[in-house]
């Protein structure tokens, strides 16, 4: 039992905080409240300082496979509301390829990701509640796949050259890299202005070699992708929730009404304490899930528990924070509002708490 971070992890946290606080001031973030939310300079800086290699094995030029390291990155991105959406690239593509691809293309893709080339994924589909069973299909013709279907909520697809898509085929589920110039992209407009796209694939032809995993491992790879995505996005939510909770504490410790600081009202301090308890639960189940995923490629229940806590905590903390800030909470000149919008995206992407409770309940009662 050891809940402490290793020195190099604290170092990652501290130096990320330094870089991100410089680049995520109110003034900087304002530029991304509309338009394409992606800070290229910040992205290059993270790449230049090796942060895109977190969670990637040294043999590919990364800084080691520990997923907790990668979790710190997402947690800090959330804490600073950074205008960077990196889970498609660093989690879905990099981690799945690292775990399920052993040929030389793996080396090439991972080192180019570390060097700052943007890849992304397109996994989720509108009105499909079961991402393990994609409606997007691939027809296999000799050495070619012909892919058709519609994906959405694909991050940064307009600036990614390659998009990892999940498809169903006669050979079962496959994960395939397609070129972004082969697909039709439509930008979506989301609550936190995240750079999300609809991806239409109309008879897109790709070589079999674009399948990123060994034959027969597609479903296993997709399950891993979905789980690690859940866990890393939960880390992002953790950062968002930590920031909102600290804003509650600092604001209510200064704001005076009735001649006293409002944090001295028990009703106020207890609502803040509830956020602290939620945050601690969220953090612990999140850490447990990422640590288990280090050594076990299938930890669905732990990933679900992490996501359920992340979703509930995001919702509860967001509304507590808005409420306890009064009008300040919704004022766009104050810091809180961006976090509240991010919290809603964190809550709902990868399924709501209720949806994942449903999934977890099925697993439990069927002894999975």
């Amino acid at each position, binding site marked *: *039992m*050891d*809940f*402490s*971070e*290793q020195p190099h*992890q604290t170092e990652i946290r501290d130096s990320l905080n330094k870089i991100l606080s410089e680049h995520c001031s109110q003034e900087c973030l304002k530029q991304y409240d509309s338009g394409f939310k992606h800070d290229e300079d910040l992205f290059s800086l993270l790449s230049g300082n090796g942060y895109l290699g977190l969670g990637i094995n040294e043999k590919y030029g990364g800084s080691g496979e520990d997923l*907790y390291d990668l979790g710190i990155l997402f947690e800090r991105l959330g804490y600073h509301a950074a205008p960077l959406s990196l889970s498609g690239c660093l989690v879905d593509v990099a981690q799945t390829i690292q775990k399920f691809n052993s040929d030389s293309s793996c080396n090439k893709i991972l080192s180019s990701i570390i060097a700052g080339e943007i890849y992304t994924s397109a996994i989720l589909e509108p009105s499909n509640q079961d991402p393990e069973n994609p409606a997007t299909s691939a027809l296999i013709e000799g050495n070619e796949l012909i892919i058709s279907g519609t994906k959405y909520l694909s991050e940064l697809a307009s600036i990614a050259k390659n998009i990892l898509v999940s498809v169903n085929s006669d050979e079962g589920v496959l994960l395939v890299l397609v070129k972004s110039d082969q697909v039709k992209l439509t930008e979506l407009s989301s609550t936190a202005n995240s750079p999300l796209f609809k991806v239409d694939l109309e008879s897109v032809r790709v070589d079999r070699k674009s399948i990123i995993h060994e034959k027969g491992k597609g479903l296993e790879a997709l399950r891993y992708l979905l789980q690690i995505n859940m866990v890393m996005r939960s880390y992002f939510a953790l950062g968002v929730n930590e920031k909102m*909770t*600290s804003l*509650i*504490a600092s604001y*209510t*410790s200064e704001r005076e009404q009735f001649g*006293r*600081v409002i*944090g*001295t*009202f*028990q009703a106020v*301090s*207890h609502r*803040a*304490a*509830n956020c*602290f*308890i939620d945050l*601690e*639960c969220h953090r*612990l*189940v999140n*850490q*447990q899930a990422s*640590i288990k995923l280090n050594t076990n490629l299938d930890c669905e*229940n*732990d990933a*679900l*528990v992490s996501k*359920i*806590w992340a979703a509930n905590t995001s919702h509860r903390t967001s509304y507590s924070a808005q409420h306890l800030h009064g009008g300040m909470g919704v004022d766009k000149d104050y810091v809180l509002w961006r976090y509240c919008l991010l919290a809603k995206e964190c809550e709902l992407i990868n399924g709501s708490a*209720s949806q994942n*409770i*449903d*999934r*977890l*309940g*099925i697993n*439990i*009662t069927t002894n999975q």
Partner: protein
Amino acid sequence: MLIELNPKQLKLRDELQEYFEGLFTPELKAELNLPEYFEGGGPEFKKAMRTMGSDGWIGLSWKKELGGKELSPIEQYIFVETIMRTGFPFPFLTTESVGPMIAEHGSEWAKEEIATKILKGEIIFGIGYSEPNSGTDLASLQTKAIKDNDGFLINGQKMWTSLANFSDYIWLATRTDFEVKNHKGISMFIVPTNDSGFSMSAINTLGDVRTNATFYDNIHVPDSHLVGKLNQGWSLITSQLNLERLALVNHGPVEELYKDVLKTAQATKINNDQYLSDLSWVKHNFAQIHSGIEALKLICWKQTWIMESGQLNMAEASVAKVYGSEFFIEAYRLMMEIIGELSILKNNSEFRILNARLERMYRTASILTFGGGTNEVQRDIIAMAGLLMPRTR
């Protein structure tokens, strides 16, 4: 970061499990099902305590030089978890809180006569802290001990003195200085329950757990019954609080019950082709309980790690207390929903499920949100120590 039990800890858990299975004879099980012996005190209970004493399973937290095993906090947690899963009403406060304090701070008499017997499983203590007018504000207690020539004269009343009906002694908090601030005038005494000035009346609770009001009428004790220095009792009361709170919210019993309810739901046919566990709302309840237990387990484990590394983290200890006690109530409710109407049937009734454990557990769960430091005060602590907010007025 490493969030799992190591091989040595897993081995300890297996060893304890095996040991308790052997200890838990059918006679003991039957005795613990009788309402008057729910909390122990019966002949089989006493026999089991002495066996545990002679097998060296008492005094796990005590320092080695005091005759204990000096187990680490996580190992102690595993001990509590394993024994609580069996349902044995192990007197933790006597053996793991009062015992080591007497062994360390008691007089020569107390060390030889009392501490040794606690280790042997021969003595049980009742805890005399709360009073009719001193609950959450414990330091305002008024039971007094007045110095006389060869000892102290004790007068007063205590409330909620659980186990007093079969205790040998009371671990009594008294006021010995009326001039100073409340918590600076408190001293701790060992008071024998066979003294003619000692009396009690039963308080029967909704959980069918008996507790007591205890009365102290001109009880004279010699100096050797004072534990620790005069007027410095408050630090003894508070020194073990984090450990005590952790024992209160151990995740073992609720997980044990959850597993049993799950097995029951999977085995209960509700029509020709469906089991209770096939219903979606039943699945949702299980998932909610499971997510809650995982968080509780991790909070507790982290707390033991904090203790082990010698840190003091008041906020985390309070998080464990608040979250655990409120989660228990929610978890029992969700489990009772699954079992439905059958879960209101008592242990002596036809159709009872799982020995009516749910029926009993929900009735005893409520005391934890206010007992052991009420949750309002714990939330105050969380806001102050965890969020650095100003003190609540």
